[in-house]
């Protein structure tokens, strides 16, 4: 367990992780640091949150907004990524990638002018925030495609458009799930930020800001734990969906 490159079974790995989590919680419980609440307080806040409709309602608002933003972002990303192999659109795709360096806060006013209501504002800000990260990931996938994949298409007499369809659209479809999985965290992180801009519709971000405002740290940490848990759940779900929809990602030599 302490040797480099040592392989351990899945069961042993889970036991090890369980013990590590238990140890950290124990240390946290036994050595209180200033205002940071102890795990028991967080657990009690979590129980309180789970017992009300407040959490479910806000969570649903956030999830719906995230999924909507993710869906639009995937579509935009795929269109520009697929087109990026055409020189005319390559520069557009590259520009989208560079948009990662723009801050959302600086664009709120422009987006407010461009959108009709708070809901649209949040959605468009989220899409604008997510698309550059998705595009960066997917362009990296396209760049990593070995020349042999295109050459095999050529030897089979495919036209360039057919090669694009076979190698990038069909061949990298599983990578779309991987891209979403890797970048879901970014979307999930941004949701708490954009929900702070328009709190009237609620959402987990609005809830977090409210508890932060009143220094209700047990509830803040409890909410963080929920956000963390949902993130892990989606990570697992997307991985599972990828293997189910694209069995070759699980295919190994027999």
């Amino acid at each position, binding site marked *: 367990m302490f040797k480099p490159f040592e392989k351990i079974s899945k069961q042993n790995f889970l036991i090890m992780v369980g013990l590590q989590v238990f140890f950290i919680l124990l240390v946290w419980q036994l050595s209180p640091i200033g205002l940071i609440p102890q795990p028991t307080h967080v657990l009690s806040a979590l129980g309180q949150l789970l017992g009300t409709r407040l959490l479910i309602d806000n969570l649903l608002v956030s999830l719906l907004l995230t999924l909507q933003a993710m869906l639009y972002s995937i579509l935009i990303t795929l269109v520009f990524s697929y087109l990026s192999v055409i020189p005319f659109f390559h520069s557009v795709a590259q520009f989208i990638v560079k948009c990662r360096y723009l801050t959302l806060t600086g664009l709120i006013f422009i987006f407010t002018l461009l959108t009709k209501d708070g809901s649209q504002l949040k959605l468009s800000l989220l899409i604008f925030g997510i698309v550059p990260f998705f595009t960066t990931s997917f362009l990296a996938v396209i760049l990593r495609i*070995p020349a*042999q*994949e295109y*050459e*095999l298409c*050529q*030897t*089979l*007499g*495919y036209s360039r458009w057919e090669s694009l369809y*076979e*190698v990038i659209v*069909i*061949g990298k*479809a*599983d990578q779309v799930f991987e891209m979403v999985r890797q970048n879901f965290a970014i979307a999930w992180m941004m949701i708490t930020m954009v929900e702070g801009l328009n709190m009237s519709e609620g959402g987990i971000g609005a809830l977090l800001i409210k508890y932060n405002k009143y220094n209700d740290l047990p509830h803040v940490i409890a909410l963080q734990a929920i956000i963390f848990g949902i993130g892990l759940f989606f990570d697992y779900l997307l991985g599972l969906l990828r293997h189910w929809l*694209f*069995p*070759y990602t699980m*295919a*190994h*030599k*027999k």
Partner: protein
Amino acid sequence: MTPYTKTEVLLQAKDLQLSYGNKCILHDINFSIRDIIRPGLQQGQVVSLVGRSGMGKTQLFRILSGLQKPTSGSIIIRERKPAEVSPGSIAVFQERAVRPGDMGVIFQNYYQFGWRTVRQSLLLAARRNKLLEGKEEDTMLQYAEQFDVIDILHRYPSQLSGGQQQRVSIIQQLLKGANFLLLDEPFSGLDVCVLDKVVELLQQVSLSDELKTLIIVSHDIATAVAISDTVFILGRTKGVEGSTLVRSIDLIERGLAWQKDVRREREFEETLEEIKACL
């Protein structure tokens, strides 16, 4: 000697030259492959291109396949005019420069689409072949049976052994309907038993159609020579940068072609020594 005649030129390399900047890789490559006719047999052509590592074999392979353009010169192939192809019609031929897709190409690592099962990959190739219209599935199954891959049709490339991948690659390119089959180092990394099977398989392919032409690029001289009718040797001439064809050997004239136990012949050994001396 087995009676045979060499008729029309099927492929001709004319004054091929390849340079990267000022560096000359290949120069003055000229050769042709003629249709061999043996009475009572559908005898295809098997040509080997041998040479030491770093002699530009892979570059020549890519030029022949149409995947890479030479700096100058051309590869001309003779093909049936598509419009004339129908059962019972007299084949009319035309000559033209090679294009990507004209040749069946089997890469050294037998690359296949990782997201397609063997069945899907083979059907994709069969659907490119207009002559197979309406009977793609049946022809694919025939080949799968013939090349012993029928049990692995549902598998993905990552689930295949090296030998299985090679067979799938060959069937795929055969289904595509190309008369020319280019093989890059087909004997590389194979154990003795598998090597014999591959040799047998290539001989089987060469006997499947009179116009079928196998071009094998290899540094395994003994195996390549054992199954070929012609050997082209890629090497260097003194004082000249880049490689060229330094020698060609007609193995039919020497009585070394189409023989199962050719390796036991003294002349085979002598030919190998002769080739080695040219490298």
